[in-house]
């Protein structure tokens, strides 16, 4: 009696799980096929990073969607005692980096890891350095940092 009972329980469980599992498996596969056909790509970020002329003729860049940019050196608002410094950082891989200082402009390209490294010249005193990143999709991000070249002792 006990044996029959156990057997009945086992058979019932197997049958129940088997039928129901098959049903859900088939339904799941059908939904996966449908979702793959109907998947809509995430729309590209709407970027409007272009210069807009002000009435005075100066350009100001509006950054709607900033690209990642990290400047290792120089540090913003730092004081340096050398006229030639390294400009290092990281951003979107293969991006063009445009650096403008009061006395010159520089371009370099980030490598496949996004790292960039170049050397720039500073003029004595205040240097407001403009940095623009242009990624391979022509999206643009701009920032400015302040570096002061001074040998004054304080």
């Amino acid at each position, binding site marked *: 009696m006990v044996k029959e009972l156990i057997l009945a329980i086992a058979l019932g*469980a197997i049958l129940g799980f088997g039928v129901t599992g098959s049903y859900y498996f088939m339904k799941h596969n059908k939904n996966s096929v449908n979702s793959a056909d109907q998947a809509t790509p995430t729309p590209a970020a709407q970027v409007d990073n272009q210069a807009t002329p002000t009435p005075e003729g100066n350009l100001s860049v509006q950054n709607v969607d900033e690209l990642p940019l990290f400047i290792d050196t120089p*540090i913003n608002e730092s004081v340096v005692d050398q006229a030639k410094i390294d400009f290092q950082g990281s951003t979107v891989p293969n991006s063009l980096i445009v650096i403008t200082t*009061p006395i010159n402009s520089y371009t370099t390209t980030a490598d496949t890891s996004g790292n960039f490294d170049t050397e720039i010249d500073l003029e004595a005193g205040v240097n407001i350095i403009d940095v623009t990143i242009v990624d391979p999709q022509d999206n643009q991000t701009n920032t400015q940092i302040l570096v002061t070249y001074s040998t004054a002792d304080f």
Partner: protein
Amino acid sequence: MPLIALIFSLLATITPSVLAATPTPTAAATAEPTSTNLEEIQRIRQAVQQKVKEKIREIASTEDTKKAIVGDVVQVNANNITISFEDKQRQLIVNDDTVYINEKRVKTTLDKIKVGQGILAMGYLNADGVLDTRRIVFLNLADVTNQQSTVVAKIADISTSSSVLLLIPVKDKDQQYQVKIDTKTSVTTKKKDKLTTDDLYTSQKIVAILEPDPKVAKTYYAPDIVALENNPPEASPTPAE
């Protein structure tokens, strides 16, 4: 037997209920990520890494680090000065040890600082973000402001007679810029191969560094141009008569 049959049927009906309680993964969650999603994830990851690094640097910066900030004076009293730069105000602490230098590079005093005066303040930043100022140099902020800018654009027209390019930004086709070029304009490719202004052509995509023309409004000069593409159209053959 009836008992066994009853148990059997109960199990056969209970198991569907158990499975139904298990949440079915939604189709969206099980969809394979598209390449665009992966790029977006990568961008977000990089942005987060950047923010984390900045925060770490901010925390790790010590009061022994020399700092220099600029701004126009908005308030001055015996012990502190408030300056403003790009709509952001900063506080400066001054004391008897603070050195003041005027535009003529001559030592001066605190009482010579007036509201509206542009200054460069050098010192050490305390934990509250206030600059313990050791040296103040008078200056004209307009002289140090970086007026150069960078634009990604396509060349819509080239005027060879007046050496002027008409640029239309790739992300804002409602804008256009009159840009002067000359023999001093440096033209390179992204790989730093040297070109000349004669290698520029209409519909070419470029990155131009622009300086506003001080004499003509809404006109710029390009000291540097980076050609993002360099595929000049082939010259059309002259049709045979």
